[in-house]
């Protein structure tokens, strides 16, 4: 059986989650490997959520927020950008494959971008194979 990755998505309520809804409303098709957690703002994302997601066995983590400058909370995603950038550097220096963590700005009107990103990211994670480094083996 081919490898079907588990991908955790964390999406902000106002842009990316709504954009994901729009992808659905417009019936765009994309792989079903992504499971989305809704938070109010990408700035809600604690870096430890990301570490934990990988420990829980996520093969990839996709964070979605409003485009910088368009944050529903004005500046939330501008903080998130910095914090998640550092998270990414930490993951990479620890030895995790760089491609497993991605941050994308997807607005509420970009259902197509959401579908495209998910499709592309899923493909990328499939190519990377299962994530075994952080995953806690039981």
């Amino acid at each position: 059986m081919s490898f079907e990755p588990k991908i955790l998505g964390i999406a902000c309520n106002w842009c990316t989650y709504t954009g994901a809804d729009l992808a659905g409303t417009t019936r765009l098709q994309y792989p079903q490997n992504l499971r989305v957690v809704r938070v109010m703002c990408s700035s809600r994302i604690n870096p430890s959520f990301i570490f934990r997601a990988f420990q829980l066995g996520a093969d990839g983590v996709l964070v979605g927020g409003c485009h910088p400058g368009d944050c529903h909370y004005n500046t939330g995603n501008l903080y998130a950008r910095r914090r998640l950038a550092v998270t990414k550097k930490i993951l990479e220096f620890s030895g995790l494959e760089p491609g497993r963590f991605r941050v994308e700005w997807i607005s509420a009107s970009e259902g197509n971008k959401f579908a495209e990103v998910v499709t592309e990211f899923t493909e990328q994670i499939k190519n990377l194979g299962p994530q075994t480094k952080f995953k806690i083996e039981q």
Partner: protein
Amino acid sequence: MSRIGVFVCHCGLNIAKTVRVSELAEFAATLPDVVVAKDYKFMCSTPGQEMIANDIKEHRLDRVIVTACSPLMHEQTFRKVLAASGLNQYLLSIVNIREQVSWVTHDIEEGTAKSKALLNGAVNRARLLAPLTSRVIDVNPDVMVVGAGIAGIQAALELANTGKKVYLVEKNSTIGGHMAQFDKTFPTLDCSACILTPKMDNVLQHKNITLMTSCEVTEVKGFVGNFDITVKQKARYVDHDKCNACLACTEKCPGKGVSEWDEGLVKRKAIYIPFPQAVPQKPVIDRDACTYFIKGKCRLCEKVCEQKAIDFEQQDTSTTVKVGAVIVATGYDLMDTKPLLQYGYGRYPGVYNALEVERLFNSAGPTGGKVTLRDGREPQAIAIFHCIGSRDKNNYEHCSRVCCMYSLKFAHLFKEKTSADVYQFYIDMRAAGKGYEEFYNRIIEEDVKFIRGKGARVAESADEPGRLIVEAEDTITGKFIKLPVDMVVLSPAMKPRADSKDIARLFNLSTDKYGFFMERHPKLAPLSTMSEGIFIAGVCQSPKDIPDTVAQAYGAAAEALTIVVKDKLELEATTAMVNPASCCACLNCVRVCPYGAPFFNEQKGVSEINEALCKGCGLCASVCPSSAIIARHFTNDQVLAEMEGLMEF
């Protein structure tokens, strides 16, 4: 131990087609703490809601999970069911298996598997949900309307007529907007001024409307029911309280400015009213054109003003207005067609854009309603190019929706006012609207030539100086058309106001990539925004015609009323709080909060949060290193538990 009920919706076949709903309910029943799991055809229907309400009682449920469409769709519906059943409404969790599962896959295996994972996450999270109480706040009964075009005017009048006090803020020195620039409106060809100016006058006279022209919003604080909005009154250099609108000043003024109202086709005075029916009909001074401001002497206007209303020392001032709701109706600009070199706009005098042509037709316009070219000739042949920048990946992808109809209107008016041959270069003729197709038929019968092909190029004629050659393919014959004309009219894309992104930032609105404001839901909440208490109307949301704009204005007024008719308002309870035992006083929360909600309590040595200001974004919780901040409804526990559930299967 929780008692969780899981309710799986089929949504007809919308979900059931690609998710095995009964299997999902059976799966839910196997999960710890789930005491009842059911599936049903339409959970949001009355019987569906009743089923949930009954099960809450029968099974003494303390958590409810509805596995259906997006929470943005029906979370409120089901929260009400919980509340009616005596359960705190925040003990609800929605699993989105429609928009984010069934509609995005064709594969029932995948759809079912993903739904199970999502449901498992929701069950994990549900156990940790806490009952929350909404805050109740007093509501300020006044409303602000930003933008006084037809949308803003209509909304303001509606609200004022219900007895509500309205602040109508307009950037320009007059209200009226683009509609006041038109001569006739399609398809009825009634006179734009005749239907608009009475409304403008009503606004001025209405005791409940505070008209704020030459004003801009500079800061928005507060939240639904209690906005504090700072408005900048730009200096007019004329004291409107003193001015009696005799307009003697405008006659004597030697200054020359470009008439924005006439789209730059003519000059106006430095002290001026934009057009004769302007409201308020009191002049303002254009600093950049005023001889006194440029050279330091003149002040002729001051000399002729008997009311002593001229005040060269006037400064910009700011006032703060308190309102309960806001309607944003900032309208549109036409796209700048100069960069489209192939059409020669700005280079060839014979090329006009649509608003310029509107002014040419207008009897109060630069030519007194006569159609003459910039060199004074009457055009013999006129080409109207549709879809310039609209429906165009390189510019604006949307259809601007009104161009087909106003282009037809132009054709009619050209026929009426000149003897010219009129050609329409179009891609598709869009005439959906009451009386629109009939109007199209009428114009066809007026012998306007329709060429199905997008105008490709405008060049100067080598043989006849001053004439233009338009080039396009007539796609019906497949022939390349080269047509000499005197006038080319471009129908450019409608785009949001140049400062729409600033407005969006001020009012916390989302925009699409062009800057049109995003509505909360394209069908069910087209006038609401993601910001509670802020509504939108007119073209600032998307291109539309006058009837639709007016309809939206009525709608937005009604939406605003739903807020300001109440004395009290319940707010979302999903705010953040500080656990003082864990607070390490790093002040990160205080530093990052966009709303200034957290503050440092020196006495206790810990941070605290003013929940009235908190909007629940959770930023403070994520920057809190010691996890002392609890972002209610999105707590660290809840998110971690949900993640664990999502990753389990």
